[in-house]
């Protein structure tokens, strides 16, 4: 028996030793100024595909020696998992135009991302394009491991027809303060025009808090992130006010505790939704909608209201052989001209300063987007800290228990979760 075990154990040890060694070599062999063909991935929705195809075509026409091969990001349960797997396998493309800021700290830890400030003009290009907003995307070591690209500032969408049916003013809905919002929701519910007044996903995925708690928390605090200076910020009167507001909606049956299969707002299952401007092209023809900023306890003026950015950025990956070309493509794809084409094609907001001033014609022709363009300058990003996803999952678990299902006290949830988050943010 012993004689059989030894060779097997030896082989296993050899395999492990080899695998351990394989973690230490290198990414793409090319340096920061290396040039040649590159590959990129982009998101898989129709409007983004159209934009990406024209961008690639335009670049390839002008750069015959540095061609882009482009494809949609491979299917997976989430793009973050696909990207993480590609980093580990060493076959990530040069650029991914769909990199979630929440995943950037992990990708950085994996050694998968290039610090864009390592390019001579990297720091200046990013800060000049995005202004103060760029700071939220800076990593703890001072580098930029993501190009701030586009945001979908989250606002309240409401169904004008259902509001009118419930006897509410569809042009000037009363949704500014928590009290107004709750009263309007009760009116909608009593009128029976929809199953729920509002129906954000009540499920347990880590990112769901970005579409219920976080936008309102950003508004209530005037732009505070969930974690700042390595500590949780939400165990505060503002955090409690937001949690109380949502708990009231769930407790009174104004928001649904059960997952809806489909789009609740598009189907008329809920009279309101809390989403970004990507939804305009989705709801445009099917729902007569209006939009307002998210509410606050005191009713903040729209031009002062903050919200969650729901941004997606661009990562330049270490597996890239031709990083010099990739950086040039990145600048080309985020140039004023391409950002304008992006805005036209998708209605999503490029993360550049003075957006409405840069594209006045677009916003004049598309007034529905103007408030999103304005809102884009007051958006809060997920904190760029270690254990980012785990922090959000921890928060979601506590939120789900005390706010959605009303078990346990909110102050206890906030303080207990803040303690856990502090530890995670410290890298424990």
């Amino acid at each position, binding site marked *: 028996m012993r004689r059989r075990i030894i060779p097997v154990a030896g082989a296993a040890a050899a395999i492990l030793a080899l695998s351990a060694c394989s*973690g230490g070599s290198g990414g793409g062999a090319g340096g920061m100024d290396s040039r040649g063909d590159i590959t990129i991935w982009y998101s898989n929705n129709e409007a983004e595909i159209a934009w990406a195809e024209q961008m690639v075509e335009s670049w390839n026409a002008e750069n015959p020696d540095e061609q882009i091969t482009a494809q949609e990001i491979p299917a997976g349960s*989430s793009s973050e998992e696909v990207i993480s797997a590609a*980093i580990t396998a060493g076959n990530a493309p040069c650029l991914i135009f769909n990199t979630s800021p929440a995943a950037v700290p992990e990708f950085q830890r994996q050694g998968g991302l290039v610090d864009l400030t390592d390019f001579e003009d990297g720091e200046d290009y990013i800060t000049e394009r995005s202004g103060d907003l760029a700071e939220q995307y800076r990593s703890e070591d001072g580098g930029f491991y993501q190009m701030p690209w586009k945001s979908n500032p989250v606002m309240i969408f409401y169904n004008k027809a259902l509001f009118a049916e419930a006897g509410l003013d569809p042009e000037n809905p009363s949704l500014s303060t928590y009290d107004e919002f709750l009263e309007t929701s009760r009116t909608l519910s009593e009128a029976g025009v929809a199953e729920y007044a509002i129906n954000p996903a009540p499920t*347990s995925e880590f990112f769901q808090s970005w579409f219920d708690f976080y936008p309102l928390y950003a508004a209530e605090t005037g732009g505070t992130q969930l974690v700042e200076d390595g500590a949780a910020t939400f165990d505060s009167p503002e955090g409690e006010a937001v949690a109380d507001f949502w708990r009231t909606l769930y407790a009174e049956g104004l928001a649904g*505790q059960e997952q809806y299969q489909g789009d609740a707002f598009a189907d008329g299952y809920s009279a309101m939704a809390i989403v970004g401007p990507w939804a305009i092209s989705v709801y445009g023809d099917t729902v007569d909608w209006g939009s307002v900023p998210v509410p606050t306890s005191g009713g903040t003026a729209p031009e002062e209201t903050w919200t969650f950015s729901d941004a997606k950025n661009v990562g330049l990956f*270490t*597996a890239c052989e031709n990083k010099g070309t990739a950086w040039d493509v990145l600048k080309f794809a985020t140039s004023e001209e391409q950002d304008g084409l992006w805005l036209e094609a998708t209605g999503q907001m490029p993360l550049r300063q003075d957006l409405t001033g840069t594209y006045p014609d677009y916003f004049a022709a598309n007034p529905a987007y103007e408030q999103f363009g304005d809102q884009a300058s007051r958006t809060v990003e997920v904190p760029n800290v270690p254990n980012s996803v785990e922090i959000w*999952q921890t928060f979601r678990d506590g939120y*789900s228990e005390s706010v959605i299902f009303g078990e346990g006290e909110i102050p206890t949830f906030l303080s207990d979760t803040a303690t856990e988050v502090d530890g995670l943010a410290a890298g424990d």
Partner: protein
Amino acid sequence: MLRRILGSHPLGLAFAAPYLIFIGVVFAYPIVFAVWMSFHDYFFAAPGAVVDRPFVGFDNYVTVLTDPDVWRSFGNVGIFLIINVPLTVALSMLLATALDRVARAKTFFRVAYYVPYVTASVAVVAVWLFLFSGNGLVNNLLGPLAPEPSWLINSALAMPTIALFVTWKGLGFYILLYLAALQNVPRELYESVSMDGGGRIRQFFSVTVPSVRPATLLVVLLATITGANLFTEPYLLTGGGGPNGASTSPVLLIYQRGIEQGNPDIAAAIGVILIIFVLIIAALQRRLVGGEDR
């Protein structure tokens, strides 16, 4: 020396080599590697990244065993097994016995029971969501007796509902196992019980149940392993283990910790504990059900 290493029939090694390599690469290596990961501060990294993965002893196991979410997930799977395994054995044995005696449309019934098993969970889950949602068919039929909160968002009922779903979905496969086992039961045994005045029920308990004991052990083992690997159903039916983690399974937790949160070392430790858990349960079941042909 060569003979000592290769044995008296070296050609046999050549025949066995493909299977040994397959087992080594597909089964042994991942398991050994997972155990190795669970004792190190391990995370996935780019091939080019220089990262430190120090040996941390039992730190990952301490983290796992002091995590209430882990305990809860094992408790959840315990609830699942208590409902799913006996129900699977009882229903599949009964239905297989009934099917064995059906004279007409035998193929139709076999296919009818088997279809849910071969249909992807993702497709079937939509039907169950329709049935068990708050305003679904089941609650409409129950009227005032419908649970509040509804099935899948009720922390006491979410896991039992999932257990029922998995039982229903897997039944066809286990029925086939029992049908195969029933082919080997001598008809004379039934006749002799009948001669002694025993009816159908007596025949079932005196002949069928003891005769298919090896199949029962197999069904119990497979159902337990299926239950321990539970992932798709809670992920899809309850939106990621809700409500409040009441339907989170250990494998779902492995997915969250290892893939979503980038802690494969913790996930590997949960996986190792899960393997030990399944082995203990299987050993207990073997002792209780009895696996030997006596």
